[in-house]
């Protein structure tokens, strides 16, 4: 493949391969060295034993016995045959056929000339068996060298075979990693290409790749949901704008064709201004929700006395609600403190109160309660009106959501969205419950610290 060098998958696989090969070679070297040292030790002990046997011969039978024993040994033709020599103090070899110079005492490597006349090295031990004779027993390193050669040969073959397999494995692993990653990137390409519904195929191994794929798919679902929501909001917005703009257009056109009367013209303009104000208030509501959702107001948060705020609201709203033929009662615990924006919290509570009177019949009882529940504070607006069917409860908080029966009433279905956004901004949420009959809307907020 042309871009194997730039592939992280192959790079990982081949790095692994190189590490494996280096490790294997190191292992071989260590094993070989340890083995070689062990053989050398064995050789040393063999020549020491042999020298000791000859010393024993000498003790029993003197120089003659020793020379005999040596020549007997030299007669035997075996690959493990050792070499012997006895030297006089002047360096003269007096017995044995090992052609070497008189050595120093102890175990060490020696040089000798073999029967073919060529120089070779051997391991030897030199012992003084009497004041005039020095015995040298030596064994050339030929058999150890042969073992070494065999071991190196076997290891080289094994090493090459292992490397070959590892290399093949690296190719397969690299290819596998790349294939798995390419599945994800192909899906992404397809989404970029406009197939928003494409998802990353998930294997049945539930390995890391499948986990990543699952997470990506969840992210894609969320994004798709947001996109759908955005589309819905834009089309709802366009729809909700069209109605007041169409009415505006109609009244302006009527004003143009029936403008004989000055008073009438003024009425038309007044009507037009009112319609434009409707549109502007829709925009204000949308912008307010966006502002709240952005969270930037949080910098201005201060401890707010919700008890005082709620009492204030009741004082302001009870007369207005009374005039609309409904009754507002309240039960508010003292010292309900939250950290927040006083005005936004007031707006949220007002929206709930206004909903409660707008979507209920005359004679409805509305109750505002403020309670502390553990470290949460609940501000609840209850009514005994028609309530919301359980299946619609999740929907009404969405932007522009309006139940069919409230299509005819004023408003854009943004009130509860704003309450929800304000509750979330304060680290809480809005909970709706059908009381059958009636509706309970609770703003659940975390309690703030008490003002000191």
């Amino acid at each position: 493949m042309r871009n194997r060098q730039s592939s992280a998958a192959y790079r990982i696989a081949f790095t692994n391969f190189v590490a494996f090969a280096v490790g294997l070679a190191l292992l071989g070297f260590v094993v070989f060295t340890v083995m070689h040292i062990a053989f050398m030790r064995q050789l040393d002990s063999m020549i020491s034993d042999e020298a000791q046997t000859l010393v024993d011969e000498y003790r029993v039978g003197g120089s003659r016995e020793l020379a005999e024993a040596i020549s007997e040994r030299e007669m035997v033709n075996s690959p493990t045959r050792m070499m012997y020599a006895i030297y006089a103090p002047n360096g003269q070899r007096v017995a044995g056929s090992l052609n070497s110079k008189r050595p120093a005492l102890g175990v060490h490597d020696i040089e000798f000339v073999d029967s073919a006349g060529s120089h070779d090295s051997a391991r030897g031990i030199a012992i003084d068996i009497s004041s005039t004779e020095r015995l040298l027993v030596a064994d050339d390193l030929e058999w150890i060298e042969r073992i070494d050669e065999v071991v190196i040969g076997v290891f080289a073959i094994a090493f090459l075979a292992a490397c070959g397999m590892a290399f093949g494995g690296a190719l397969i692993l690299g290819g596998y990693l790349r294939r798995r990653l390419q599945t994800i990137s192909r899906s992404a390409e397809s989404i970029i290409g406009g197939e928003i519904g494409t998802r990353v195929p998930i294997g049945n191994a539930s390995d890391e790749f499948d986990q990543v794929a699952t997470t990506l798919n969840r992210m894609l679902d969320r994004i798709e949901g947001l996109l759908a929501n955005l589309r819905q909001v834009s089309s709802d917005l366009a729809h909700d704008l069209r109605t007041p703009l169409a009415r505006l257009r109609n009244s302006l056109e009527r004003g143009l064709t029936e403008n004989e009367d000055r008073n009438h013209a003024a009425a038309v303009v007044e009507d037009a201004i009112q319609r434009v104000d409707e549109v502007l208030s829709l925009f204000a509501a949308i912008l307010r929700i966006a502002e709240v959702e952005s969270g930037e107001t949080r910098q201005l948060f201060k401890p707010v006395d919700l008890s005082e705020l709620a009492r204030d609201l009741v004082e302001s709203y009870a007369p207005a609600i009374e005039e609309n033929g409904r009754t507002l009662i309240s039960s508010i615990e003292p010292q309900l403190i939250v950290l927040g924006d006083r005005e936004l919290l007031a707006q949220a509570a007002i929206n709930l109160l206004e909903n409660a009177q707008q979507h209920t019949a005359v004679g409805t009882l509305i109750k505002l309660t403020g309670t502390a529940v553990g470290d949460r504070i609940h501000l609840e607006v209850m009514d005994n009106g028609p309530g919301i069917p359980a299946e619609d409860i999740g929907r009404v908080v969405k932007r522009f959501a309006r139940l069919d029966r409230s299509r005819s009433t004023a408003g854009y279905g943004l009130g509860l969205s704003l309450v929800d956004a304000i509750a979330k901004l304060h680290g809480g949420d809005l909970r709706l419950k059908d009381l059958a009959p009636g509706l309970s809307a609770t703003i659940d907020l975390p309690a703030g610290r008490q003002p000191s």
Partner: protein
Amino acid sequence: MRILIAEDDSDTAEFIQRGLAELGHSLTVVASGSEAWLLLSTEPFDIAILDRMLPALDGVSIVRRLRAAEIHTPVLILTALGRINDRVEGLEAGADDYLVKPFAFSELAARVAALGRRKPIQSQPTRLEHRGIVLDLLKREVLRDGAPIALQPRELRLLEELMNEGGKIVTRTMLLERVWNYHFDPRTNIVETHISHLRSKLNEGGKPDAIETVRGVGYRMSARA
């Protein structure tokens, strides 16, 4: 009054200029922040109307500079940004009022009139009087033609705001801001409800209407009462 308008959108500038000129004010219009700063720091104006976003120097920076230079010309900031943070920033910089575009001209006119009447803090009256109605701000007492009238705290605050403006219009929005401290428009007209309660208490016993409703704009103390 001599009013400076700093507004870079020529349509809006003309809309404000024509409206205020009709009310008899003398207007100077500039389109950049640096010009506004130059004029305000060298010539006396009664009121400055500054757009929040201006080329060269924005409205809030001008107010900051003015206040730093001990120039206390009342400032009204106009803005297309209705965000809470922006309003707080504007008022903290030393602006006296803050109006979000688009606005009704009557709203601007009422606020300009209120700014023009703004008194220094040390000469704040403790007693307001308007055609037989007396509001004692220290005792929180109201008398009409010498007879005491019992008002709810909220009604008293409304009356105070109306009487403070001495018969000039106070808009519904101004009342919401000043009495309730709400900078949004509730659907329920709580101002109307409370004004109507206040009005019926003031007018008890068939007295002439003390509060006049200016349709679509606001309220003022009645000149006829």
